[in-house]
């Protein structure tokens, strides 16, 4: 499956009706070494654009928004187990944040694909 990206640098990848969500490589690089992250509990529901998680580097605290509406069915135990470096090492793979059960897949249509996101980042 391919990833879609938000302007706030979250990515989402859909498999069936489960969306895996994380922050982009660009976001992880901008943030620097992650020193703290807070993930939502399983069972919590979010609308697209809601504050969903917090990630902090030595430099700053950043909100992570839900790139798509859904209910949390799993959170990454690496991150809740305080293995925060995984967010810097593999932000778009092992450093995923949560899996959401998605109701409306059409919300993805408003997000950028890989090429559009690469262009967007270049312009920042």
């Amino acid at each position, binding site marked *: 499956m391919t990833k879609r990206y938000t302007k706030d640098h979250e990515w989402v990848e859909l498999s069936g009706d489960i969306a895996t969500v994380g922050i982009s490589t660009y976001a992880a690089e901008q943030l*620097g*070494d992650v*020193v*703290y992250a*807070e993930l939502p509990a399983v069972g919590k529901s979010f609308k697209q654009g809601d504050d969903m998680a*917090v990630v*902090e*580097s*030595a*430099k700053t*605290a950043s909100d992570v928004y839900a790139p798509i509406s859904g209910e949390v069915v799993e959170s990454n135990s690496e991150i809740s187990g*305080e293995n925060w470096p995984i967010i810097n090492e593999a932000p778009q793979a092992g450093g995923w944040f949560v899996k959401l059960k998605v109701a409306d897949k059409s919300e993805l249509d408003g997000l950028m694909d890989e090429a559009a996101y690469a262009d967007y980042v270049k312009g920042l």
Partner: protein
Amino acid sequence: MSDAEPKKLPLDAIWRARTSKFGDFAGYDMPLQFEGLIPEHNWTRQHAGLFDVSHMGPSFFALPKGHGLEGDEAHKKVASLIERLVPADIQGLKPGQVRYTMITNEDGGVLDDLMIARPAEPAAAGDLYIVVNAGCKHQDWALIEEATKGEANLVRADDRCLLALQGPTAHVAAAAVIDPALGDMNFMTVKRYDAFGRITVTRSGYTGEDGYEILVRAEHATDLANALLAHAEVKPIGLGARDSLRLEAGLCLYGHDLDPTTSPIEADLAWTIQKRRREAKDFPGAKRILREYELGAPRKRVGIRPNDRAPAREGVEIFKDGKKVGVVTSGGFSPILNAPISMGYVDAAFAEPGTGLELMIRGQARAATVVPLPFVPHRYFRPKKGA
């Protein structure tokens, strides 16, 4: 202030070649980060970091030419003028001594914190070297001129470069690149050297480490910076790590941990007000400051360690048993402790180390503990006795 583009540092090209991460700070386009905040922080604690702090306000304050005074007499005269604005004993400085102090207002609040030095050279008797904060320099210089009009001259030196070299091997690099004599300077002293033009060097800094601040004319600054950066112990460090280093060292950042409502006593800076001034009671805000000195201040700056991993940053409210008792003024992550750290002001009743508090972070109360400052011990250079 204007909306003008931030000013470029004289050494802009040197930093630009090493990083693209810049940001506007006090009207200057400053390098924020090179290798990464945490590696830069750790490098400075283990080796030597080079910081460009040319945005700050170095200046010379001098009796008018032909003042006819010499030595201690000339110094006492110029010092008495600046003492109209600060509560430190400046008259008592020995030649070559540097002192940390603050400009206070009539309400006993702090308008800026600064360093004042008495030059070591006899020919400079009647001069003071004064370094103020970037964001306050126009205010400070105006205040100094207004309070001393016609009696002394203030000469800005912020067209020069101010470089801070900080860390346990700063003396090795400074001795190799500038002059072996730099290794023998005591902490909180100043001396001029005929190298890279004529430079003014203080053994001081704001990281908790040994080190130097070097005032160099812009035309020689590139050579000096390049020579230091070529030394194996030296790496460039951005403003980001400067902030985490001073926080670990428990040092105040003006505009955050100090402001016009905060008294030096609340800020736990009573040690900066020497006995002669406390007895003379002749500085701005003396009434409040001395009352708090005697009876204690209603609130106090403290170190705070969150009990879990969530950093508590500036603005986080502090509670005790559900009642608000203070606010965080600086907070972040300590690379050395590998843990979050904060400074803040709390009601005096809750300022004892060991006191349990709650930090309200994103609507959730989290347990924290008052700890002594600094978080990481200072390692300033003191000469070995009888060596």
